[in-house]
């Protein structure tokens, strides 16, 4: 496979979009009062596919898209027990960045940011990627030291990151309280200009439309109830809509990754935690960067509509429950006001929770498993959305070539048995 560094998709592919999106098309259809055709059409389910992908989120749909576009494998089904993007892909806070701690992590997420930069062109879909800059605040000498370390690793890998002081922080985000007379004074920050936010639903829909245009079947409301394994090989899956014969199953779920892997008899080092987020009423634009504080367990960004999106760390105990808690909102509001006291009168609109599959080393699990034909792209913890494109691209290559590409080689399931972990807790535990 050809490799490129500009993030553009690598094959010509033959797409058949119901309608291409363009400014001229918008004007023409607007003037003619012509409705748009649906972005993609559901297809009847077949009895067998070359590849079945479990999970219709950004990871599963991106894998299907790159299988079709980069490798010409189009006999692919993507199954979701709800609607596409109803899991983690629609519940995250849509922050993208690549300022990680380990060289493996930085290279991987940098590739993802590069793919996101070209995604709107590749998919013919406006994903509204705004590279507004990402700022991680340091409230202690220890976190400032880690940030210097991260900045140096980033620079070596060619990623734009630097440590800045309170004066520069105040210039970039005037509403932040940088005075020393607070409980957690801001001592500095890791400033990462390529980071930003994106519209996560558009990413899901763009990939779904792109994959469907290349012949991929997307089956919503189709729950996988079992995986047939015989002689150490995958034979097919059983679903709520009937059985499907297939030699390759990719588990691309978040939250339910243990349950799907259990169906194939593969043990997982995963614990599922809820993570809560909240959004305020819209206010005038005042915040042009993404603000993250690991110490205060909060990250803040302002959407194009003006709403402030807040997220936090995972809940303190494992659960599959997606209910919000008052305790979370109280803590979150206190921490946000510690950073931006001017927000006292802003009202919260709603809160929600998503499920995060946490691994022991805060890195994902990607690639083959002891069961032939059963692959995983799971364990995405709190950082799965930002890795969607690169994971899809890498998993597609893994399926097409039969071996994991170098970029995901460190993330294999066998690393736990071998004791070779990729410790990303310092850069992934809270920061988003």
């Amino acid at each position, binding site marked *: 496979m050809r490799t490129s560094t500009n993030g553009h998709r690598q094959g010509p592919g033959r797409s058949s979009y119901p309608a291409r999106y363009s400014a001229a098309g918008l004007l023409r259809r607007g003037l003619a009062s012509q409705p748009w055709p649906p972005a993609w059409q559901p297809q009847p389910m077949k009895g067998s596919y070359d590849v079945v992908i479990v999970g219709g989120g950004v990871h599963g749909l991106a894998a299907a898209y790159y299988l079709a576009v980069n490798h010409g494998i189009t006999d692919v089904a993507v199954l979701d027990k709800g609607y596409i993007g109803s899991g983690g892909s629609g519940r995250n806070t849509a922050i993208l960045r690549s300022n990680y701690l380990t060289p493996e992590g930085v290279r991987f997420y940098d590739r993802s940011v590069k793919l996101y930069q070209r995604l709107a062109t590749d998919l013919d879909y406006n994903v509204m990627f705004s590279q507004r800059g990402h700022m991680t605040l340091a409230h202690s000498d220890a976190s400032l030291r880690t940030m210097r370390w991260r900045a140096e690793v980033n620079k070596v890998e060619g990623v734009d990151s630097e440590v800045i002081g309170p004066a520069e922080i105040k210039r970039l985000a005037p509403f932040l309280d940088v005075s020393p007379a607070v409980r957690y004074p801001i001592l500095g920050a890791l400033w990462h200009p390529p980071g930003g936010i994106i519209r996560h639903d558009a990413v899901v829909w763009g990939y779904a439309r792109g994959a469907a245009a290349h012949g991929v079947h997307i089956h919503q409301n189709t729950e996988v109830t079992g995986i047939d394994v015989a002689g150490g090989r995958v034979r097919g899956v059983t679903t709520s809509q009937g059985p499907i014969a297939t030699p390759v199953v990719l588990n691309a779920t978040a939250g339910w990754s243990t*349950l799907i892997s259990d169906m194939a008899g593969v043990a997982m080092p995963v*614990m599922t935690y809820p993570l809560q987020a909240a959004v305020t009423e819209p206010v005038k634009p005042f915040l042009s960067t993404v603000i993250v504080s690991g110490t205060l367990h909060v990250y803040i960004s302002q959407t194009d509509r003006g709403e402030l999106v807040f997220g936090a760390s995972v809940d303190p105990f494992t659960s599959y*429950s997606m209910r919000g808690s008052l*305790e979370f909102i109280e803590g979150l509001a206190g921490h946000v006001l510690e950073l931006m006291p001017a927000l006292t009168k802003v009202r919260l609109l709603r809160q929600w929770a998503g499920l995060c599959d946490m691994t022991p080393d805060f890195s994902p699990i990607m690639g083959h498993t002891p069961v032939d034909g059963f692959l995983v792209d799971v364990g995405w913890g709190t950082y799965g959305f930002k890795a969607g494109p690169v994971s899809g691209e890498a998993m597609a290559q893994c399926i097409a070539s039969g071996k994991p590409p170098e970029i995901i080689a460190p993330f294999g399931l066998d690393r*736990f*048995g071998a004791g070779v972990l990729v410790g990303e807790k310092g850069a992934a535990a809270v920061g988003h």
Partner: protein
Amino acid sequence: MILLPCAWCGPRDAAEFAHIGEVSARPGPDEVTPGQWRDYLYMRANPCGWTRETWYHRQGCRRFITVERHTETNEVRSVSAAGAVRAGEPPA
């Protein structure tokens, strides 16, 4: 958040506790292979349903308890003393 009935203190806010994790059998470090030891360290059942787990009442009686909890509804079915265990070492 949820109420967790401590075996000694009665129902308390779960925020008072530290969630230690699933109860699993700890193999003897002298007898196991490195692979078995790493399975014990890292692999988790992580069920969506009833699970037996250890909690530590750090802001209360500072004792360990074994709780049967449903991970989807957070309903608690039974609570018992975890016995003499240290942090991170749930009983076999």
